[in-house]
Each structure stands twice: as C-alpha cells, then as structure tokens.
C-alpha cells in the first residue's frame, strides 16, 4: 500500500528531519505513528500524501513510485487518500457541509448523489447543527471533526490522520477512533499520528515511533 525505502528529508539547507526511514504499510492495516513534538510525524504524513518531496529515497504508494509520478496523475492518487491535517485546512468561506463535500465536488460528483452521505457523516461526528456554519465560528473540536469528516467522506483507500483528536474530549475521541476502526474494517488502511496515549489503549495496533529521525516499530 505505502512503502518508504531509505527515505531522507531535510527542509532547505537544514539538518535532516527524517533519516533513512524504511517501512511498509500493508493494505488494510491500522497503524499509529508517535514521536515527540517536532520529531517529524507531520513531515512523514506529508511525504506519503505527496505534499512534500523526499530529499532522497523512494516512496511507493498504490504500487506506484510517487517520486516519479507525473503531475497530471497526482490529483487522482490524492483522491484515493483521505487526510486530516494538524491545522485542519478548512476553507473559511465555505460552510461545514461544503467543506466536507469538497473532495466529492472536486471529483465531479453531483450534489444529489452525495448530500445524504454528507449529512449522515456530519451527524455521526456531531456536527449536524453546525452544517451551515462557517469554520471561523466553530469551536476547536468542531473544526477538527469537520476536517475528519472531509478526510473520510470519499471512503479513501488510505487514511492519514495527523493528531485527529487533539482538540476533542475523551468521549468524542473514542467515538472518532471507532469511526477510523470501522473504516479500517471496510478496507481502508489507516495511519494515525498522535500524542494521545489513551488512544493507543483503545485500539490494538502496531505503533511506529519516530525518534531522532529514525523509525522504530513497537507493538
């Protein structure tokens, strides 16, 4: 599914944030990514999402070498991936509903074909009342849930979530983790970066730990 081979990453002329990272994410697996603040978790997810280019090494995604894939192919690869960004990246001038529906709209789907799904999902993440509100008036946790909803609305093959429960209460966090687990059962591969040790307790899954730019697997 996702395979990093001796990947190194440095920003500009700075030191390497990631050094010789090697790992493979099996199709249908569920994995946590941990590490201290500034260890490079977000950077690693951005690499997987093709928002960054590795300084060296090779990344294979859906059996394609994404360091070589053409720019025209990028959007189609990205549509098969859902991402929750640490800073949400919602569009302030679109309602919560429109934000969540954005990946579908961008993929050329018609509203009548997705309106139902979007409303159901908003309901599930507890944003039914906020469907027509704009992100700037949402609470931190509400924005985060909107971001999660946007990431999963298109039932992606791969889900990359960066600290997706940092702004919600423990009960909601467990509910969201259940959502991820549910999707995982339906075939979505999940890679979830988090600091929340309680989450690790709720799902039995391998943990990838980043330290000094290197990745270690823990169970």
């Amino acid at each position: 599914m996702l395979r990093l081979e001796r990947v190194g990453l440095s920003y500009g002329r700075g030191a390497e944030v990631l050094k010789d990272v090697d790992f493979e994410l099996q199709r249908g697996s569920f994995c946590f990514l941990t590490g201290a603040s500034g260890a490079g978790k977000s950077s690693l997810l951005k690499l997987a999402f093709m928002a960054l280019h590795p300084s060296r090494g090779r990344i294979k995604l859906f059996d394609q070498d994404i360091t070589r894939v053409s720019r025209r192919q990028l959007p189609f690869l990205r549509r098969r991936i859902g991402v929750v960004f640490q800073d949400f990246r919602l569009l302030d001038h679109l309602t919560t509903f429109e934000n969540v529906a954005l990946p579908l709209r961008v993929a050329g789907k018609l509203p009548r074909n997705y309106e139902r799904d979007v409303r159901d999902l908003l309901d599930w993440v507890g944003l039914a009342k906020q469907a027509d509100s704009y992100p700037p008036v949402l609470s931190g946790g509400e924005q985060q849930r909107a971001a999660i909803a946007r990431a999963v609305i298109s039932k992606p093959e791969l889900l990359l979530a960066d600290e997706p429960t940092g702004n919600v209460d423990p009960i909601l966090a467990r509910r969201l983790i259940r959502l991820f687990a549910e999707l995982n059962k339906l075939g979505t591969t999940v890679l979830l970066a988090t600091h929340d040790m309680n989450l690790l307790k709720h799902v039995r899954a391998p943990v990838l730990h980043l330290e000094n730019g290197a990745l270690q697997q823990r169970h």
Partner: protein
Amino acid sequence: MHRPDIIPSKAASLRTLTATMAVMCYLACLAVGALILIDRAVDAWASGLSQEVTVQIRVTSDSDLQADINKATELLEATSGVVAVADLGEEAGKALLEPWLGSDGLDALPIPRLLGVKIDETSPPDFDALAAALQEAVPTASLDTHRRWEAELTRMAGSLSILSALVLLLIGISAVAMVISASRAVLEGNRPIVDVLKLVGAEDRFISRQMDRRFLSTGLWGGFLGLALAIATFLALGYAGWAASPGLAAASRGLFYVPTADTWLPYVALLAVPVAATILSLVTSRLALTRMLQR
C-alpha cells in the same frame, strides 16, 4: 441545491480588482472617446480647408511682373512642403481688390497677381521662413497670412491628435500595470484555497476553471461599470457641458449620434476596452496560477 463558489467573491483584494477594472476602463474609455472626437474634429477641419495658400505679387512702376512671377514660382517649387504652384491670372487679382474698391475703374489700377500654392497638409512648410525668403528674393511678393492661420490651426489640431493618442497610450500602459498588479494580488490572496483544493484532489483544470470564472465575472463587471461611467460622462458633457464649451458638448453628443460612415467605430472601440482589460486580467491570473500550481 445551490453550490457556493469555491473561489470567494468577497475578498478585499477582489474589490480592489473590481475598482481597478472600473477606474482603468473608465479612463481608457475616456481616452478612446477623446481620441475619436479629436480625430474626427481634425478630419472635419482639414477637409473644410483648402490646401492652398496664396502669394501676391504687387505691380510697381519699376518691376517686371512676369520676371517676379517666375522667380517666386521657382522659389516656391523648391520649398519642401509645397506640392504645386499655379498662376491664378489677372482675374483673381481683381477679385481680391473688389471688396475694397468696388468693380468700377479697377482696370486702371496696377492689379496684383496671385499665385496658388498647393501645400502638403501632412508636412506643411515653415511659413515664417518661407515669407522671409520670398520677401528677400522678390520684394514685391508677399505670402497671404490668412491661409497661414488655417494651416497653423490644422497643425495645432494635428498636435492635439498626437497628444491624445499619446495620452491613450500612457493610460493604456498604466491600465495594464494596474490590472496585472491587482489580478496578481487576488491570486496571491487565494493561495491557501488553491493549496487546499490541490490537497483534496482537484485537477489543475478544475482550479483554473474556478479561478477563470471569478476573474471573468469580476473583470467584466468592473470593466463594464467603467464603460458605463465613461458613457455617462460623455452624455453629461453632451448636455450639461453646453455652457462651458459648446463645441465640446456637440462633439460629445456627436460621438454617439452623428451618423457618419464609421458610426460603429466608437461603439466597437469603447466595447473593446473592458473586454481587453478582462482578457488581460484572465491571462495574468492564468500565468500566475500556472506558476503557483507547478510548485
């Protein structure tokens, strides 16, 4: 179900772009209108004028008229800006004096001779120098200053026409600079949105279509607002301007109503302004967007 625009329509930079389009199109339309007005006025003027000046040669007791005529003709033909010289004959001289002296008893007088000098309208000779040269070579000859005034006027109108073309050019360049700058600011302001669209899997085509739509509607709305203001200004000049400057007022109205062979010209020229500005804005945004997407 109504789907809101993906590129927002309410950013401050977009309002600036609208204002830019409106103001620059307004000024450009005014300049185009003025250019058309002035060109027409100059044309009308020039066609109403004879392209001739006259040279009078006096008859004195000690002068040889024919020799003077030949000498003057020679001199005139050698002057640049003079197309042709013709002796207008004795009758023309008589016609000249008639208003002052009546037709009786003219035959007894030493009737001066007139030469018709056809001049090149586009590059008339230097009349002051010509008059001096003529006086020097043939003391009995003098250049008719009446026609000189006409030529002076024509030259002044020509200058005016060049000046207004120059103003149009400068306004045009300014408009281009402004539209480019404002369009780039709008695109720059939309960078975070473009980034998010890329991340949710939008194709470049999709993004540029959305962006084009926004620039197209902003551009056309601003541009035609400017055009409408310009037309309103011409109309206001045409009616309210009467007291200040009747000629200007009539000309302003003439711009739209007077039927001439090229009645369609002002309409087309004015329409071209907002359209060209919008296209410029679109092209600018496209180029900047392409660069933005490439990274």
